[in-house]
């Protein structure tokens, strides 16, 4: 059995790609084109995603219609901000490879690189 996180990702991926409300049945049918997965399993994981706030839902008659709470791009942007330490004083990540620089700092980096190139050429 695959890890729960992977199934969560698989389900979210479908909602993001479709960009419209869908039922659990639709998701199961789509996943079952590639591999067999029980309806109940997908129902359970979908409601976990709803509880975590990744999905919103509306009831039509007897079935719930789910939809992604935010677009994939919005998620990526929020993560990046978090990872780059822009959103909080204590970011989730350790440190990014290189931080944002102002024009003077950037020019100084370029100068340092160019000097090495010149030395190598001589």
């Amino acid at each position, binding site marked *: 059995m695959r890890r729960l*996180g*992977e199934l*969560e*990702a698989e389900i*979210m*991926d479908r909602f993001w790609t479709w960009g419209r409300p869908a039922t659990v049945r639709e998701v199961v049918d789509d996943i079952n084109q590639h591999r067999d997965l029980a309806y109940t399993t997908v129902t359970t994981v979908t409601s976990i995603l709803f509880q*975590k706030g*990744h999905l919103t839902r509306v009831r039509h008659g007897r079935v719930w219609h789910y939809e992604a709470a935010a677009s*994939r*791009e919005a*998620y*990526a*942007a*929020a*993560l*990046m901000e*978090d*990872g*780059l*330490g822009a959103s*909080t004083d*204590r*970011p*989730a*990540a*350790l*440190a*990014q*490879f*290189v*931080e*944002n*620089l*102002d*024009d003077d*700092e*950037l020019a*100084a*980096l*370029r100068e*340092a*690189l160019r*000097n*090495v190139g010149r030395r190598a050429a001589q």
Partner: protein
Amino acid sequence: MNAAPALLGYAALVGVAVPRLMTRSVWPHRAPGLGAAVWLALSLSFTIAVALAASQLAAPTEHLHLGLLGLLHACGLGTTAPRPDPTTVDLLALTMPLAVVTAFVAASLFHLARTGLIRARHRDRLDKVGARCDRLRATVLPHSTPAAYCLPGFRSRIVVSDAAVRLLTEEQLSAVLEHERAHVAGRHHLLLAATHGFATVFPWLPLARRAREQMAVLLEMIADDRALRRHDREVLATAMYEMAAGRAPKGAFAAGGSTALLRMKRILGPRRTPHPAFRGSVASAVLAVPLLPLLVACPPGL
């Protein structure tokens, strides 16, 4: 003899004067691993000195002979004959130093737990949005800013934006990822948690402030050195420039001075490592410094 004044004097030396000396020296940037060890040893030494001083202030008549052994004895763990009933003073003399050490450890653990929770939440979302790339051994995040970072700790992740993948050459990208992997492999987040914890307990202390600043810089340098083991220095330096140039300039409210130029010059400049004899003596100092407060509290001659 009451050792409190000597201990407090020592604490002032380690807490104020030595950090100034350390930030002025050039060797820590040439041997960043050793530099990081010294900052940790100083923090530990300061904590022990303050703890022992607290004990002496609580029980001025009590001798601190044999330092830790004396504490163990007071705990009832000593092998000598049982002492008379502990008085309030005895209890204070024991709980005060314990409180100082516990505060340091607890603040570090708290910081670790807090960042761990934030990371777990981040990872949960990351695994949904990002694509795991087995070839790069990293998670690729769809984003127009060229960036790379890591989530250290349990179930670690190396994250790179697809803009960075497009921007950098194969070799540059590999060097950047190697740098991030060095952070994870070296458990750098534990060292950062310790300096954060120390700064939480002693917020006004120059040693705490500088240790926190310097630790962050030194860890970046350690990771740079790891990347340079397998990659050309020009490749790493160019990757650094390309990534900095490929994003929006820093806003007016962004955090202070950048260490990028410092790192860049270090990567490109001639390799200068301190003499082995110097490294050896600093390494022994790292081991000795945390024990120094015990010597100050109880000079062998007395």
